[in-house]
């Protein structure tokens, strides 16, 4: 186990180092999520309820995630470095786990700005919402990283990723919005946890087939 | 025919129409396949003709 953990650590360190060095993904995510919320403010008619605002936060999160996932494998594609990583003796799922962790970290930082902004612009934030956002991040990172690897191997990457990503993310949005607006968010948080568990295992097991022949 | 009956009929026709459309599309595919096979047989014949070319030339000077 420690060998696997050290591989994941090395790869995650590399991803975070890449971001520190090029500093292009994180700043754009932060600006994007806040400007999305501002746009939503104008999109909402004056009389709309707290429910609508809660829903829009999740739309902002999904599209911020799309932005982050679109950048996920750009560095690996540039110099065919993915082949170098696939050649290494480590388990290929370590590449998926490390990339997933870095995507989740970027998303968490973006949400660390978005949630207070949401509280400021729209409505107070409950603990259930924060729990739902954390759980949704895990699901988005797990499924999103796998789909980003698929899109990275195809021609129309920027077009393909949203098509692949949006249908599977619908249950996450339902769970998230449910936890945000419903009186007893417990059911929705449990559903999010179930989704994370199921699709994290599925993505972990199938990543190897996406990057090799 | 009540409105309901018209709609039920419409539903059955939709499914029948889809199947027929599928068959039509499939016939286009078969036609394309047939053209391709014809093309390839012509290609094959031309190749055979080229292979038999040498014997034909030998025969001519004998006449």
């Amino acid at each position, binding site marked *: 186990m420690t060998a696997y953990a050290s591989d994941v650590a090395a790869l995650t360190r590399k991803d975070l180092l890449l971001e520190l060095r090029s500093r292009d993904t994180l700043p754009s995510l932060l600006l994007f999520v806040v400007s999305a919320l501002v746009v939503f403010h104008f999109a909402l008619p004056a009389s709309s309820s707290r429910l609508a605002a809660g829903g829009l936060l999740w739309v902002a999160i999904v599209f911020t995630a799309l932005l982050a996932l679109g950048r996920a494998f750009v560095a690996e594609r540039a*110099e065919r470095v993915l082949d170098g990583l*696939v050649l290494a003796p480590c388990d290929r799922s370590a590449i998926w786990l490390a990339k997933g962790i870095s995507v989740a970290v970027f998303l968490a930082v973006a949400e660390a700005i978005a949630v207070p902004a949401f509280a400021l612009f729209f409505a107070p934030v409950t603990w259930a919402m924060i729990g739902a956002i954390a759980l949704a991040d895990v699901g988005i990172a797990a499924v999103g990283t796998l789909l980003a690897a698929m899109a990275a191997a195809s021609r129309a990457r920027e077009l393909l990723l949203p098509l692949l990503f949006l249908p599977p993310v619908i249950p996450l949005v339902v769970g998230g919005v449910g936890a945000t607006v419903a009186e007893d968010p417990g059911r929705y948080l449990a559903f999010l946890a179930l989704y994370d568990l199921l699709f994290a295992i599925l993505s972990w097991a199938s990543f190897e087939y996406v990057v090799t022949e | 025919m009540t409105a309901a009956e018209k709609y039920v009929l419409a539903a059955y026709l939709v499914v029948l129409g889809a199947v027929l459309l599928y068959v039509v599309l499939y016939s286009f595919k078969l036609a394309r396949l047939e053209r391709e096979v014809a093309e390839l047989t012509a290609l094959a014949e031309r190749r055979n003709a080229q292979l038999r070319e040498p014997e034909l030339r030998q025969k001519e000077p004998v006449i």
Partner: protein
Amino acid sequence: MARPLITARELEKRFGDKRVLRGIDLDLAEGQTLVVTGPNGSGKSTLLSLLAGLLAPTAGELEVRASRAEIGYLAHEPLVYRELTAFENLDLYGRLYRVPERRERIGMLFERFRLWDARHERVGSFSRGMAQRLALCRTLLHEPRLLLLDEPYGGLDAAGTSLLDAELAELATERTLVVATHEPERLAAATPSVKLAL
């Protein structure tokens, strides 16, 4: 005679409709050197990718009796991150390949390939020749048993070429080499024991 390191029978590789490799038969024993020659686009890189395990054969059998930790693959691209420094790249690969005394090994390679003073510079700022030398360091980092070198002389200047000549001469004695090149006469150092023209 020990079983050959690489065995290939009727090996074929196809990309969609285009067939790139066909009917390749190959036996390469431990310590031998195979030189693969042929014009551009003849499938040399594809063959090396197959040997490295990056591609799966479309037909035929291929057996490479070396684990991924024992294979070094020098591709056309350097397979290193442009945004990271030379040292950070090798450090990453060193960890993934679990190279013992990683830092010393990396330092020694940087000196041997004269990259010591550029070791903390971004690879993006490297010239083609420097990137090729870094890729050679990456390939030799974990002292692989089987070396797959695709156009190793690509982009190297005179100094780099003579440096690689010395390196190949030494490697050919103790390791198994597969070198793909479209100009075999330049391979003075490594006397090929097996030749394959595509």
